[in-house]
């Protein structure tokens, strides 16, 4: 395998990794606060649809259209996650069922609105998504410059920044400590005067914002329009990254990069002698197989938030 080939893979791998990382960070906020969110996929779809639609509609009037699109994607994601928060926090709904409902809902809502707005099964295609950029200065660094700073999507830098912000918020601030305590032992947290429901609302809405952003990022970098296939399971890969990354921001970053590269590898496999014989489906399967292996490996160790997925009963001991 030639070294240049690996370098060539970087931009495309980082492009795939970015939405995975961002959505997985969303999952991290939600699960650390104690609410399982398997609707990352559905929220990404809604975010991607909103971002693509806004980009298409604003494109003629402003060059900032894709960035406004991302903001609207975030807003749409928050709106979607509000349903999940209300159902699972206020109405004590089963979180997996509520998440499943949102995943079904997303496919319906996005294509329904596409038909109403664009009179077809998808959004119209936008002429410019988010543009690649070369970072001046940093791109001169030998090797690293070529890997990360030449002709990359800026969304990757957003993803890395979000990893640092998440780490700081969740592990270095009183807010983060309180949030994590709600995911570990909500009754104990409540006894210390922490507003469990409020914390969980923040966690779920943050997951909505991030997954919405991830959907927008994905559609505006890897696609030319939103279709029902645009997200194709990336939300579930994000969920896998969360598990694989041991519910930790840096773990999520590593897992997201790993899955990004395994996706990129499926495109380049035909150029690499010892991989050429493997079918591309093999590479598509990898993230899922690795996640199951990781789950077995972590089994019995307390890795994830202990109370995630449990319905909060303030009277329970």
């Amino acid at each position, binding site marked *: 395998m030639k070294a240049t080939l690996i370098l060539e893979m970087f931009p495309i791998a980082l492009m795939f990794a970015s939405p995975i990382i961002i959505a997985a960070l969303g999952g991290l906020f939600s699960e650390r606060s104690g609410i*399982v969110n*398997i609707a990352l996929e559905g929220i990404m779809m809604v975010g991607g649809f909103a971002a693509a639609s806004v980009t298409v509609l604003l494109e003629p009037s402003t060059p900032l259209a894709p960035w406004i699109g991302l903001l609207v994607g975030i807003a749409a994601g928050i709106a979607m996650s509000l*349903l999940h928060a209300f*159902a699972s926090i*206020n*109405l*004590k*709904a*089963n979180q*997996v*069922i*509520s998440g*499943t*409902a*949102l*995943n*079904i*809902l997303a*496919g*319906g*809502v996005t*294509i*329904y609105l596409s*038909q*109403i707005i664009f009179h077809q099964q998808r959004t119209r295609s936008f002429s410019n998504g988010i543009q690649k950029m070369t970072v001046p200065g940093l791109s001169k660094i030998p090797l690293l410059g070529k890997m990360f700073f030449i002709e990359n999507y800026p969304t990757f830098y957003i993803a890395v920044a979000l990893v640092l912000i998440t780490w700081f918020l969740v592990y270095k601030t009183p807010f983060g400590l309180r949030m994590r305590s709600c995911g570990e032992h909500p009754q104990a947290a409540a006894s210390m005067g922490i507003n469990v429901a409020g914390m969980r609302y923040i966690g779920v809405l943050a997951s909505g914002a991030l997954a919405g952003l991830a959907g927008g990022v994905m559609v505006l970098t890897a696609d030319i329009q939103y279709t*029902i*296939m645009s997200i*194709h*399971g990336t939300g*579930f890969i994000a*969920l*896998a990254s969360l*598990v694989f990354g041991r519910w930790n921001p840096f773990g999520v970053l590593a897992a997201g990069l790993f899955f990004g590269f395994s996706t990129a590898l499926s495109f380049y496999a035909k150029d690499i002698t010892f991989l050429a014989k493997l*079918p591309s*489906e*093999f590479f*598509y*399967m990898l*993230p*899922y*197989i690795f*996640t*199951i292996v990781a*789950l*077995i490996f972590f*089994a*019995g160790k307390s890795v994830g938030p202990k109370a995630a997925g449990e319905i909060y009963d303030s009277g329970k001991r």
Partner: protein
Amino acid sequence: MTKRTEKVLMPLIAVFLGFLLGSIIVISTGRSPVSMFSAMIRAVTGIDLVNGMSFNPRYIGEFIIQSMPIILTGLAFAFASRTGLFSIGAEGQLMVGSLAATAVSLLVVAPAAVHVPLVLLAALLAGALWGGIPGLLKARFNVHEVVVTIMMNYIAFHLNNFTILNVFGSVDRVKTAFFPQSALLKDPMLESLTNGSRLNWGFVPVILALLAFSFIINKTTFGYSLRAVGYNKEAARYAGMKVNRNIILSMMIAGAFAGLAGAVITNGTFNFGRALPASEGYGFDGIAVALVGANEASGILFAGLLFGMLKAAQPLMQSQGIPKEIVGIIQASIVLFVAMQYGIKMILDKLASKKNASAEGGQE
């Protein structure tokens, strides 16, 4: 409210609210809910209320074939659910089931009386195997089944596409060669009876599966111990029940139901194996069916017919200018309302206590 009426009433309220919300969305986007409901009626009865009461039995046939696989995936979700497991894996189990059905259809030469049962058996076993893996991981390592079954769905999806495209060979990157007649659930008699619909004998395994579900869960000691594990794992263990074995078996039986759905689709609705661009959502439909059907065989039958009707009405709605995705929206809101039943119950209880209070007030 007694437990029993509550079990029937809650899903009905959820269904009603789902349709209500769907109608509101249709109205607010400038379409007519009348054409939506007339499409649904036409899908079930074959009668066109809008255009001169014409009758076409083909719609009834299509309505039934839409219901068949989702009743089976509904049984799959419900069976695991009764043992306290949350399996999202019906989608993948269905795919390996259809893959196994494809393999037996294309590779085995046998008379129909042997070939069809072999196809069904292979699909059933493949589904059971695929469901057994998360069951084993849950029992052995206590790995949560939700994440594993989601991952297994995607593995099955890519495995199916790989096998169809590379092992059986496809003409057009979409489907395999046609199956021999002996492997099919199709029957020209059923098709002509319903004016050329795709109705097939697949409803026989569906009915058998419904009966088997009800029998195992309600009438056998094994079913009793499965439910005991579902209610309280530790108590069941204390009572000497084999909890881990029950978890694995429950996931396997659930997988078998979903696997069977795969055969019903490939050998009934179609007559070839298919490579798919995306999963078709039968597994998620099954979750909706099981939730609305309250995890009971009879409930699942009705809920399966309800959602089958919605699926069958989709093309009719589209031709009336209503985006067919409204069905997904209605289905999702029904599931959401079922999930919110605690809140709905609170509202109902409040209404009831108000009524009581005013009645008491009247007596004084």
